[in-house]
């Protein structure tokens, strides 16, 4: 018990020291995935925690047995080695039982995956294109499109200025989306493979040149959600962040109108088909 307290005290002292030392950095010991702000992100988080706790339980039992054996079955304690060396029954047991545990895990995982694959009936569709080294966003129905580039000044990166709180995670033009509406994200790329990832939404999807992928999200809470490119794409792979700003529907429409006024769409977006 005392041992445990000493270790914790030591860890906190170390953490405090590091926090103080790192100066302008926020002391942040985030150890876990975010539950996020969508139903899917919460499901993913729950799945992650379920598997994690199962692993902890199995580990505790298995390592517990092993350390017990290390303590008790030592030659220095006078242990004499037994000679048993096989048991078909036990081999079958510890093959079948883990399989059953795995099946139990696979069921909720399958359900979540199926739900994540359903991108139908979206309210807003946005085409995301990865470039070296920035993102391009095009709202297919609203007729607006823009690049989104890292806004952190080079001075901060090269340690000539203090780093602000959103270091490496701010852009010049955010991806503004409506809260509570289903948003379909199409990903592609213009040069090499990138990957679009916002942890708060619960998923990432690769952006592959020449191909189109679709994903969807429905953000429940207004806020600013930050992410990064998640596929090595060259020298500035670490410098092309994503910032999603989820706002109420009315505010979103206003933003769309402002963006349209700034950059009138060049192609006529029309509906309706001309059958032959």
């Amino acid at each position, binding site marked *: 018990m005392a041992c445990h307290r000493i270790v914790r005290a030591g860890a906190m002292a170390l953490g405090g020291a590091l926090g103080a030392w790192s100066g302008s950095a926020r*002391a942040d010991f985030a150890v876990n995935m975010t539950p996020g702000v969508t139903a899917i992100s919460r499901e993913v988080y729950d799945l992650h925690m379920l*598997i994690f706790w199962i692993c902890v339980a199995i580990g505790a039992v298995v390592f517990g047995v092993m350390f017990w054996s290390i303590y008790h079955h030592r*030659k220095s304690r006078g242990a004499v080695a037994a000679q048993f060396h096989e048991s078909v029954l036990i081999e079958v047991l510890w093959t079948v039982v883990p399989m059953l545990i795995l099946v139990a895990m*696979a069921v909720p995982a399958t359900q979540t995956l199926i739900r994540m694959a359903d991108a139908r009936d979206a309210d807003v569709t946005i085409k995301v294109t990865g470039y070296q080294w920035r993102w391009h966003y095009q709202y297919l129905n609203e007729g607006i499109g823009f690049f989104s580039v890292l806004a952190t000044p080079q001075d901060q990166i090269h340690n000539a200025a203090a780093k602000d709180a959103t270091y*490496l995670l701010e852009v010049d033009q955010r991806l503004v989306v409506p809260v509570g509406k289903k948003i379909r994200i199409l990903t592609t790329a213009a040069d090499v493979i990138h990957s679009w990832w916002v942890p708060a939404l619960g*998923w990432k999807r690769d952006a592959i040149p020449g*191909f189109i992928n679709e994903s969807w999200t429905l953000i429940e809470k207004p806020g600013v959600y930050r992410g*990064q490119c998640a596929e090595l794409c060259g020298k500035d792979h*670490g410098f092309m962040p994503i910032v999603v700003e989820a706002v109420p529907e009315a505010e979103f429409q206003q933003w769309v109108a402002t963006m349209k006024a700034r950059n009138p769409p060049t192609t006529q977006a029309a509906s309706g088909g001309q059958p032959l």
Partner: protein
Amino acid sequence: MNIAAAPALNHEHDTHAGPPRGLGRWLLTTNHKDIGTLYLLFSLLMFFIGGSFALVIRAELFQPGLQIVNPYFFNQLTTLHALVMIFGAVMPAFVGLANWQIPLMIGAPDMALPRMNNWSFWILPFAFALLLSTLFLPGGGPAGGWTLYPPLALQTGQAFPFVILAIHMMGVSSIMGAINVIATILNLRAPGMTLMRMPLFVWTWLITAFLLIAVMPVLAGTVTMLLTDKFFGTSFFNAAGGGDPVMFQHIFWFFGHPEVYIMILPGFGIISTIIPTFARKPLFGYASMVYATASIAFLSFIVWGHHMFTVGMPLAGELFFMYTTMLIAVPTGVKVFNWISTMWRGSMTFETPMLFAIAFVVLFSIGGFSGLMLAIAPADFQYQDTYFVVAHFHYVLVPGAVFSIMAGVYYWLPKWTGHMINEKLGRLHFWLSVVGVNVLFFPQHFLGLAGMPRRIPDYALQFTEFNMISSIGAFLFGFSQLLFLYNVIQTIRGGEPATDQVWEGAQGLEWTLPSPVPYHTFATAPVVE
């Protein structure tokens, strides 16, 4: 066939007292012990080279901001760190152990094809000289990751053909080595040593050799396709020409996943040798261990898609790969349970090899648990390409494969050299390594979960603390390995004389030989009861 009457394979040495002298010995040797030594020393050198790349990486990541290297060079370091560690350190080390131990364990005078054995080794220094020389080319070395994904990999400059050629050379070396291992094990076992009486290290190497034969040619094919895409106008992976960059990933990982089992199965064999020795008890479930190893090898061919969960595979594909990947946990778990059952009600002592073996069981299992988490496809959408993955594979490779190699070296060095290792130093090396490796890699789980992507030279402020801790661990772990180097050199040169038995509980043909083993052994095959 009467192997018992097989003569020594090197007639020239019949008139010499021992091995030839001078540099020529090492250049021309066909002796499995010499070649094993060459592989092991080469891999140790590569371990330190790859390790120094890692230290530069961790030094850059000590604090947010760019302090030491520019991002492009950083990418070269991460790429070369992986290529050197995988193809230069881990694989050659296991081949070195195979060379030393397989003939001794099966009662054979040497490997089946001794001259090819020499070529297999000597290709490697050339291949790595070629690979590392790219750092000095204008435009630098490869910087697209060891996984070489196109189109990014095709943006590599002058280094590109060098890298492809180096990879081909490494592949040829591995394939020749694997052929040699299989021929040796199938044809040169002493009479009485049936397959199901072979030491488990030999079994795991037999299975590993088949994996190598199956997948190294696929790697060769796929990097050749990259080469022709870049220089000869093909469009295997170029969408503009009707190709598909994702297809590269499929073909690469079809090689890549069995590759990671190639890098651990011999380690399983080493642990299965060490634990029974120091528990003074036979390995629990020998047959089960053989079947589990074979199952892992078979399953390793049908899980590759788990490296690609985020590319946009159809649902059916994602589910298939999720299920098969989860399934691999079963035979792996069986092995862990068997090791612990070997320890159970044994009579254990904890010399350095055993310390490393125990650490392997715990820490490799932790790597296995994070692997199971990664197998869950929807959760993997959050883990993929983050430090969670980096933590996972470093746990299975460093306190996994590397610890097993060190355990094997500590275990067999007295037999090879005739001297006991410095046990105090071994213990110190062990404890510093265990603490170091965990301080280095455990926080990386948190970094990945908190949202830090991999392969980035700079990061957002919330990742500062754990990066700092990890970098401190890196320097602690890295410099501790000098203790291993010192111990190995010291033991080669002298030390307390080792008995033939060396370790009280050791079983197997190699322990029937004198310590140090003579240059030529088993000229006449022993009979195994």
